[in-house]
């Protein structure tokens, strides 16, 4: 193809995909290939498509995504480790007309923040919780998390997670689905285009649900941590399909207040 032929395709009227305008031009602080970036992008796309930039307040966690407020051009607050659902509760109760969401890793949401997660879900706060589960503490150097799989090697389980000593991996998403305060609970991923589309739809539903005032919408995204897993990004995604998905199966768990799984 000649450059001229290419230039005839690369024209504004032929645009089919570009980065959401809700994303700032700051370079994402994530490792190459990390699913956090993709998750950020689809949240931004949902906010842009719903036209709710001015009405949305996000809560960033402690973890690799602590700087989320630098990457999305919306109002955000950063919570102490694990406390995002408590902060989201306060913000939503003070400003019930806003769309309020938390964005949290598994160390944040399922370890230090377990109490906040469970009680916000049990109280049925009208918020969205976006939960990025990469089975590890990414930011601090790849230590074992409650979500780490059996046998999985991490910095603090170099011989693999031994259930006899370290206990069982925690399926907190299934746990919160059992609570009366959750209205929708789903598990998604963002490593392929088809999965990105599904995850985006799930996030859209979680945002739209807030107007119904029927409780928490909980979206888990099973994601990679190439650095912590010590794999290239494509290899990490493959490893995730083969190892994470059997234990953390994708799909809806609770729809419109009813368990479907």
């Amino acid at each position: 193809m000649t450059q001229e032929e290419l230039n005839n395709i690369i024209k504004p009227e032929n645009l089919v995909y570009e980065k959401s305008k809700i994303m700032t031009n700051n370079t994402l602080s994530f490792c190459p290939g990390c699913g956090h970036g993709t998750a950020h992008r689809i949240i931004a796309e949902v906010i842009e498509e719903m036209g709710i930039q001015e009405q949305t307040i996000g809560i960033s966690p402690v973890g690799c995504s602590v700087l989320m407020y630098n990457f999305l051009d919306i109002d955000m607050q950063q919570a102490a480790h694990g406390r995002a659902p408590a902060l989201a509760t306060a913000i939503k109760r003070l400003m019930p007309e806003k769309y309020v969401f938390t964005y949290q890793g598994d160390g944040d949401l399922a370890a230090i923040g377990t109490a906040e997660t469970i009680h916000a879900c049990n109280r049925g706060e009208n918020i969205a919780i976006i939960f990025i589960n990469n089975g590890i503490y990414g930011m601090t150097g790849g230590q074992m998390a409650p979500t780490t799989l059996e046998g999985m090697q991490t910095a603090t389980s170099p011989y693999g997670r031994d259930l006899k000593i370290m206990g069982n991996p925690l399926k907190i998403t299934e746990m919160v689905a059992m609570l009366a305060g959750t209205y929708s609970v789903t598990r998604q991923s963002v490593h392929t285009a088809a999965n990105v589309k599904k995850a985006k739809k799930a996030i859209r539903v979680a945002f739209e649900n807030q107007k119904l005032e029927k409780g928490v919408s909980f979206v888990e995204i099973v994601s990679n941590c190439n650095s912590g897993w010590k794999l290239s990004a494509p290899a990490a995604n493959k490893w995730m399909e083969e190892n994470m998905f059997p234990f953390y199966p994708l799909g809806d768990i609770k729809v419109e207040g009813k368990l479907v799984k």
Partner: protein
Amino acid sequence: MAKIKGAIVVDNEACKGCGVCIVSCPCKVIELSKEVNGKGYNYCYMKDPDACIGCASCGMVCPDGVITVYKVKSE
């Protein structure tokens, strides 16, 4: 029959060379360049532009949002 032709534009300086777009492309259009950008990453480029169908798979999976996708239909 309508012919579909696509093209992508990669922000070379922002690409982190992760290769996620390469495996996502159904038409094997993308490759990592031998050159590196200012950050030392081998950025990706269209090795086979004729094969691109503008499906936007690469754009959707790029964690850093550095791919813009264009598509034309011709009769």
